[in-house]
């Protein structure tokens, strides 16, 4: 069944002419992450719009400026969590399944740690203010909660990939789902930096 079309598409010229072809899945995930990024941009834009339209005092009612210790630890846990995924993806490219499994497991542990720290952070914050206290409370919980939801979804996806890899579904040639899950995780990871700056750090400027 392999005919001229196939020969044309695998001929040396065709293969040498362009870099590794991007799959439809890759473009689809990039499109999805783009629209997600736009969504976070709108939320963070909303934060600054409300803050600057309101002026001083900010936060509007007696909410203290947020403490930075816990969020900085959270950052230290989440930011490097992309590295094991990269390491895992490179591993499966060479057919090393143990690297895929180990890397995914490491990232999942780091992500879970981040979420646990966020729960702790919420416990202390909820004693101080809730999402009905004033608009800062609403923004704080909406934005960080929405991001936390994304981390949870990312963890679900990674666990799903890990489960599939334990069953032996991936090989050096067939591992597109690993790469797509990695793109999503990098996004969730990076967008946290923007949130840290907006919700925590910018309050101290």
């Amino acid at each position, binding site marked *: *069944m392999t005919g001229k079309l196939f020969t044309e598409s695998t001929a040396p010229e*065709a293969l040498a002419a362009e870099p590794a072809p991007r799959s439809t899945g890759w473009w689809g995930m990039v499109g999805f992450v783009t629209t997600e990024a736009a969504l976070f941009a*709108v939320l963070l834009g909303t934060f600054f719009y*409300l803050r600057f339209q309101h002026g001083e005092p900010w936060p509007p009612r007696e909410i203290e400026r947020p403490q930075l210790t816990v969020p900085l630890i959270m950052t230290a846990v989440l930011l490097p969590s992309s590295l094991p995924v990269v390491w895992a993806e490179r591993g499966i490219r060479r057919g090393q399944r143990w690297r895929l499994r180990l890397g995914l497991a490491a990232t999942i542990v780091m992500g879970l740690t981040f979420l646990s720290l966020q729960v702790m952070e919420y416990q202390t914050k909820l004693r101080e203010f809730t999402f*009905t206290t*004033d608009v800062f409370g*609403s923004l704080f919980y909406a934005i960080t909660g929405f991001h936390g939801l994304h981390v949870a979804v990312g963890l679900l996806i990674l666990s799903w990939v890990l489960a599939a890899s334990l069953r032996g579904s991936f*090989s050096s*040639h067939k591992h597109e789902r690993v790469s797509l899950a990695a793109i999503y995780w990098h996004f969730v990871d990076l967008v946290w930096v923007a949130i840290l700056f907006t919700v925590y750090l910018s309050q101290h400027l």
Partner: protein
Amino acid sequence: MTTTSAQAVPRAVAVARLEEQWREQRSLRSWFATVDHKRIGRRYLVTAGAFFGLAGIDALLLRTQLARAGGDVLSPDQYNQLFTMHGTAMIFLFATPMLFGFGNALVPLMLGARDMAFPRLNAFGYWVFLFAGLIMFSSQFLGVAPNGGWFAYVPLTDLPYSLGRNLDVYTLGLIFLGVSTTAGAINFIVTSIKLRAPGMSLNRAPLFVWAIVATSFMVLFALPALNAANALLFLDRRFGTHFFQPDAGGNTLLWQHLFWIFGHPDVYIIVLPALGIVSAILPAFCRRGVAAYPLVVLATITIAIISFGVWVHHMFATGLPSLSLSFFSAASVLITIPSGIQVFAWVATMLFGRIVVRVPLLFVVGFIVTFVMGGVTGVMFGITAFDMQITDSYFVVAHFHYVLFGGAVFPIIGGLYYWLPVLTGKMASEVLGRWAFGLVFGGFHLTFFPMHLSGLLGMPRRVYTYPTGLGWDPWNLLSTIGSYVLAVGLLLVVLSVVLAVARGPRAAVDPWGGDTLEWAATTPPRPYNFASIPQVFGLHPAWDRRTLSRLETDEVLPGHQALLTSELDARPQRLVSMPEASLRPLLAALALLVVVLGLLWAVYWLAIAGVVATIVVVVGWLWPPQLTRAEAEAA
């Protein structure tokens, strides 16, 4: 019978095998599980058409109420629900899905592909759209339809001014629908990037495809603003947050900004694909390609970009600093330039072509006349001083109906007549079509032109009645008469489509002599679209003898396979297998429906159950196939 493969099979045998592999059984399961882009596209068109009918009936009721001063057909509350649902449904449940329906049915054919890049995601998008539409329209029959206008300004729509579930239907329904629109947009982009036939480099992609892709990119960047606004409003109303409540630090203008950051691009999200339809119809009836193809493409992209910088012209009267008004006023006037380029390109095409007057062309001409008139009033609104005088009057209503009905509905009807052979294999009656055009065109202008005048005479929009003696009575009566004429015209359109499907003559292959690849396939196309993947050598592949002859002789691409090509030059890259029919898209959409209903009714365990169900379905949907033994050993 030419084939170069080692296991040579005669072409007829290969095609018969293909038929067997792509055949869909006529069963209930197949009806729910299909992923064929043509069937899904037809469903989009029929469903969106039905919603158009419902929202149109809403409008007729409104016009009946306003026919004379002091009318008492509708109560004020009924009137509020009707005009809100009319606008919301026409924008969200008719215009975009209808154009996405054309995109679904036609983009893979125009590209010479066998299906969309993600056929199951495509089916999922349709089901979500259907369910979101059903939720929103059923609210109307239960008397709890949204009632805050289609742009739902706070504080009116926030607590404590809007109690009841009405606005929750609006916020949740639109977020739900957004899932479908986003999925569709990503699908169009990826399909157009990766599945173009070999040789169809970017500078040979049909203008309709360019328009759909530009629209899809706009969806990716604009829709998040609407979704965020609706989510924040839902949180305000249900859980007591303060995003739009100034006494706790919120801001009411935030809603208007977020809404129009989405809303103005959305005008072009609706109009651009319709302009694409115009560019697709014209070549067949002018017997030449659209003039200035590169300029039309650039104009399309320019409109898509500038449209993100004009949203404040909806807010000129809100007391913003005049510096920002000047900026947005300038941008609003600027955007008329690329729109003008397109209009001149169409006029030049007609001027230098040999015109064949048929029904689709009539609707295109009706479009050009009406859209230009809407554009002229649009420039007037771009001027802040004029806008201040006329904002929120019936002049606005007249303007945006000229733009949206003129800019989208005329091309949609023209497209329906033009592509009916592709969609159904039948031809519509020319006579009935001409009558329909006359009534729609006349009825439209009789309805909406007088609104310019009643608006200039000071009639505000969204009033459920008005006293006599203000000089508005004759113009309103004319509008109402016009709306009935328009309705008869639209009924004739429906009638001619139904008659064509029921007992119209079978369409000949390529009945109009179109220039894009959907006319190079059989009419109507087979489920696999093309047995041999087309080779493209120019801008008008269906007018190109090389493409046509190779379609007959090239080797048949067997099985459920599609060819991926490179992003810019469409060089062949590799073959991929396409997914088969599946019930999972429907199940996933149903699970999401449960989430939305749980949130709407405040039955949160139901919503959580829906989330769990969604996860279960999606996990199964995307579970990687077991490696073959050879693959496992190679790893």
